[in-house]
């Protein structure tokens, strides 16, 4: 309270975790140590990796390479031990690069992307050479001229863009130029709490988003409430985050494919919001629903063993796939089944997000940065890292549900060889379903005022859900504001 200029926004993190964090994490404005710095071994052991062959332009890769991403374990060298700080997927891949290029001095920051840190380093003239950021915000930085277009780098180093999943590549392509190399690819399926569903006399297949009327009925059957306060959630439509998915299911997009025209006031989008909100409103008030979802029994232990599936306070919900791993480790015995999200025509759809490597326009060592990006996203590199994680988890008796890399070839190998019924347990069908739906997922295109756009449409949805605002009015106003923001950002 009586402090000097309170501005430490980083405590964000714990909250964002406890409070039902269903977002594509990396890149939350929760702060972190800024760009260059960090200590990391130049080439440490630990990765048993067959390296990909050096790229076509591999001639002049040397010097210092500052990477704005966490190395993944401290203190080095890494012991891939279970309970602790190690991120095998990170350091294993970086070690692959380090071994291939012993002349390069790698320097990692101790944190993930943070806007303040990144901007101050750019202002000071020494940004990192290669940066990992969330695909969802890349549009802003491209529009502001902060990033280097990668077309040159791609052709020089011979990066094969076809190996990456198309929606991920689309998410980092602006006006035909590629600005990032995708990394990670999360997608969404529906998790069904069998005990609740069967207890209501239904089956898992009844959770079907292609028939909205039926779903509304199922929602009513599954939910429980006392007056205006829910005591069990039937179907959680996951507003505001999943509005794009609902809109897509209704045949519309909230933004045009080139990312320059807001389509929030499209009647189909409004219809989608109205419908999804009605699912929430059936539980009582939106405010009570959100409170129960986050802080009620089950919800409060979202990452632990007393989660909402165990406590039976939830019927079904769409969710990102990384939650499968959390469930597998905390409630392996709970009976959970999986359904794809479908559009109203009955086709499977999904929504995906993830990170991307980018190169700041004012970086020093762009060649090394480019090669770095290429090497750490090769199928072999991914596989090596996934193997380390799989082995670690097996040794600790924990589940391994795969790594969703964004690289099709890598995924095929990982899910073909490493993820088995044994490693994933009861969640194996879920893992398989995620793989199947990965191909039908879509991403939002890069938007010039990306974060502002997201704030605006999510704010409108929140106003509808929590505040009882009228969807048409809210989205029309949001559309206007969003278009203004996009226009002025160009």
């Amino acid at each position, binding site marked *: 309270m009586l402090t000097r200029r309170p501005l430490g926004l980083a405590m964000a993190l714990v909250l964002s*975790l*406890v409070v039902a964090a269903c977002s594509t994490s990396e890149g939350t404005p929760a702060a972190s140590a800024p760009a260059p710095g960090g*200590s990391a071994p130049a080439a440490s052991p630990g990765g048993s990796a067959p390296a990909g062959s050096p790229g076509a332009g591999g001639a002049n890769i040397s010097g210092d390479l500052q990477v704005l991403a966490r190395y993944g374990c401290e203190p080095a060298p890494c012991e891939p031990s279970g309970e602790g*700080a190690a991120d095998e997927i990170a350091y294993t891949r970086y070690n692959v690069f380090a071994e291939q290029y012993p002349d390069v001095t790698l320097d990692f920051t*101790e944190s*993930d992307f943070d806007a303040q840190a990144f901007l101050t380093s750019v*202002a000071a003239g020494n940004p990192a050479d290669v940066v990992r950021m969330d695909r969802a915000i890349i549009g802003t930085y491209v529009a502001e001229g902060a990033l280097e277009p990668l077309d040159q780098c791609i052709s020089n180093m011979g990066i094969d863009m076809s190996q990456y999943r198309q929606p991920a590549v689309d998410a980092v392509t602006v006006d035909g130029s590629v600005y990032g190399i995708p990394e990670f690819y999360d997608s969404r399926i529906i998790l069904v709490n069998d005990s609740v569903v069967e207890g209501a006399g239904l089956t898992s297949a009844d959770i079907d988003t292609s028939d909205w009327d039926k779903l509304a009925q199922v929602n009513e059957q599954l939910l429980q409430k006392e007056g205006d306060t829910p005591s069990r959630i039937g179907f959680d439509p996951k507003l505001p985050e999943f509005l794009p998915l609902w809109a897509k299911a209704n045949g519309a997009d909230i933004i045009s494919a080139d990312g320059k025209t807001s389509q929030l006031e499209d009647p189909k989008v409004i219809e989608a919001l109205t419908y999804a909100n009605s699912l929430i409103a059936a539980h009582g008030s939106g405010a009570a629903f959100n409170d129960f979802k986050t802080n009620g029994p089950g919800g409060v232990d979202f990452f632990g063993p007393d989660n909402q599936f165990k406590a039976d306070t939830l019927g079904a919900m769409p969710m990102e796939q990384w939650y499968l791993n959390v469930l597998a480790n905390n409630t392996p015995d709970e009976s959970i089944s999986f359904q794809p999200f479908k559009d109203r025509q009955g086709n499977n759809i999904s929504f995906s997000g993830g990170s991307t490597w980018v190169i700041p326009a004012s970086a020093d060592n762009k060649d090394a940065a480019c090669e770095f990006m290429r090497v750490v996203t090769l199928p072999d590199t991914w596989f090596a890292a996934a193997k380390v994680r799989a082995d670690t988890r097996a040794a600790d008796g924990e589940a391994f549900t795969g790594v969703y890399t964004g690289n099709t070839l890598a995924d095929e190998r990982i899910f073909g060889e490493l993820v088995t019924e044994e490693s994933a347990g009861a969640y194996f069908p879920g893992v398989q379903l995620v793989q199947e739906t990965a191909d039908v997922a879509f991403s939002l295109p890069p938007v010039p005022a990306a974060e502002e756009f997201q704030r605006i449409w999510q704010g409108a949805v929140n106003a509808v859900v929590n505040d009882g605002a009228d969807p048409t009015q809210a989205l029309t106003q949001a559309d206007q504001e969003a278009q203004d923001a996009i226009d002025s950002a160009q």
Partner: protein
Amino acid sequence: MTVQTSGVGGAPPPASVTAATTARAAAKPAAETRTPGMIVRRILYFAALFGATLIFVFPFIWLVSASLKTRQTVFNNDLFPFPLHFENYARIFEVVPLGNWFLNSTIVSVLAATTVTISSAIVAFGFAYFRFPGRNVLFWLVLASMMLPGAVMLVPNFLIWNALGQVNSPTFAPLWAGNLFGSAFYIFLLRQFFLGLPRELFEAARVDGASYPRMFWSIALPLTRAALIVVFIFELRAAWTDLMRPLIFLRDLALFTLPQGLNYLVKIYNPQGGGQGEFHLVMAASVIITLPMILIFFVAQRYFIEGIATTGSKG
């Protein structure tokens, strides 16, 4: 010294009243009898204080109990988890360089608190005692510097320190060196306390030939010892718990301060990033961060009381 008893107004009470009151106060008998009414009231005071204490202390109790649980049970509502997992504390030291961070935080906090107390006292005395043209304008400048939101000064501020080569520096300069110049908050605070000292004391010293620095050192400082200790403790706490500055200016893991380290811990355990959500360790780290401040504060209080006692009856 002048004794004031008048109402809530700016004017000091007339001298006759003060003289009479002092005389009467001096003349009254020393013995105090404990009436039943007084005992009841004392009990009420303690009860109210206990109630308030519970409200303020409860979250910390929760924190400690959470730090002694396992990963699975960390967010349950148990206040007294058995068995107690003290090994969480040992584990934290293995996973991150907590010892280093502790040292860093100590260095930064002590430097920050010491420098700000001395410099702010000097400046505050300047504002409180002296009459000079531009006094009000300058003081308004001091106030004004508290009024601009820090976010917009962030980039220019960073650039200044960067130009001085002090980003990621083992001297931790950006975290405390600004305090060499005083801090608006404490200048304001100490000025208020200095203004409460009777001018006659200083006039008397002037007549005796004391120099201004001497008056500052021998009269003003000792009489406001309690306030100085308050400033020191406050800044100690502020520097100890500050997160913003270290995030911007410190980049090597070994140079982190405790809050920054805690933030790092939370990040690496983020399940979305592949971590395992080891919140019980986060809670243990939180307790470790909090305890020193509590102990220091508790110990320093005696000096509050002593300091205050000497400023009591200035006969």
